[in-house]
């Protein structure tokens, strides 16, 4: 007898789809993956929309669901790759001021080249502009661990970015 709030998803589908897809495509830069995650987002939204209290069925809310799906993807990828990769010692946790103007085209290639956990942390923090606490929530880490991860991620980014600056072929 209660109306199904998830039905609202059909009403906003046409306007929300390019937004959700555009968000995911720009963050993962992989067409197939972006489509998979877009599908996962809408199907997960059906279940999420039926929770109590009912969330607002809006594009903004769907982007939040998409962000969870993206973070989940990177966490899966990180688990799969962990065994194959040497511990990242390079860069350490020391941060000296970095005074450059980042070239965003190169930056996105650098992000593609990073490990999933570093890429996830930097994307949520800087591309999406989330507070560190929310980044921590998406990655399932503590605030402290996330701050440390961001330090390592920035160091890894700088290392790859610096190498690309010297030799553009380094990213290939």
């Amino acid at each position: 007898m209660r109306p199904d709030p998830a039905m609202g998803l059909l009403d906003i589908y046409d306007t929300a789809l390019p937004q959700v897809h555009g968000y995911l495509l720009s963050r993962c830069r992989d067409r197939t993956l972006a489509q998979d995650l877009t599908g996962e987002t809408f199907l997960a939204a059906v279940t999420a929309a039926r929770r109590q209290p009912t969330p607002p069925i809006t594009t903004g809310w769907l982007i939040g669901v998409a962000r969870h799906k993206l973070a989940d993807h990177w966490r899966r990828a990180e688990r799969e790759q962990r065994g194959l990769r040497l511990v990242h010692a390079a860069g350490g946790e020391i941060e000296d001021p970095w005074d450059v103007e980042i070239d965003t085209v190169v930056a996105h290639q650098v992000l593609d080249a990073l490990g999933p956990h570093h890429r996830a942390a930097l994307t949520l923090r800087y591309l999406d502009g989330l507070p560190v606490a929310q980044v921590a929530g998406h990655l399932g880490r503590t605030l402290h661990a996330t701050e440390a991860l961001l330090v390592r991620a920035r160091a890894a980014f700088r290392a790859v970015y610096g190498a690309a600056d010297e030799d553009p072929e380094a990213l290939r």
Partner: protein
Amino acid sequence: MTDPRSDPFWALSQPITPVDPDPAFAAELRSRLERALLAPEGSPMTTTTEAPAHTLGSYIAVNDARSALDFYERAFGARRRGEPIVMEDGRIGHAELAIGDSVLMLADEFAEIDLLSPRTRGGPSQSLYLRVSEPAAVDATVRNAVEAGARLERPAADQPYGRNAVVVDPSGHRWMIASSPAAAPTARHGDLAYLTHAVADTERARAFYGAVLGWTFVPGRVEDGWQIEGTNPPAGMHGGAATPGIEPVYQVDDLTAALVAVRDHGGQAGESQQQPYGRIAQCVDDQGVHFQLLQS
């Protein structure tokens, strides 16, 4: 901490640019979405014949099972689950209805095994409790039930635990129709949270506003106090006012601090009173306008 604006990483900041996916993908995802929306599985919102059996269910005796099935369909939006089992003598021995996410089973009276409806037995010994999604749905369900032939035993009214009403169906079963309390008001500091109409004669005022604005009223918590149904912000009325008027109730974060501020700025502030919905105090501003402050 360094100045966050000087962090070169903020150059990565990227607003969302919409990108249309492949139209075939878009169409395929839409149909997957439609299928997911229509699948009853896991959905507490779907009224279907697939309603799962809960640990405790109701199996009731009714005077006339065929009419009762119709009644429950019209009154409560019930859906039939399968075909009724008809006995050799024509009585229905078993029938099932899905109501919301629950199953109601019923059968005609079988006096030979002392299975009698409340009407035949002289009254119900229990109530069937029907939970609906929101306070307004209580009223709508009661209307449907009464139109379908139920007797209204207790009109819908707001209780601290939610809005509820009681109807008695044609077989004599007593149905309590209830919703959870409306979500807590989301009024923020400084918002108008409630309007109180102070009038001399509530009967006249109810007739007037009922005719002019279509307002409906339910008895409130205090004597001659009335809730106006469904307005935004919520509003009420009380009688016996020497000086009729409308008093706004403003939401505040900290009532104690707000009352100090009222007095500091030349207003008058009464004592705060604890009510079920929060702490509230009468105030008068420095030009004589009455208002109330609420910390809920």
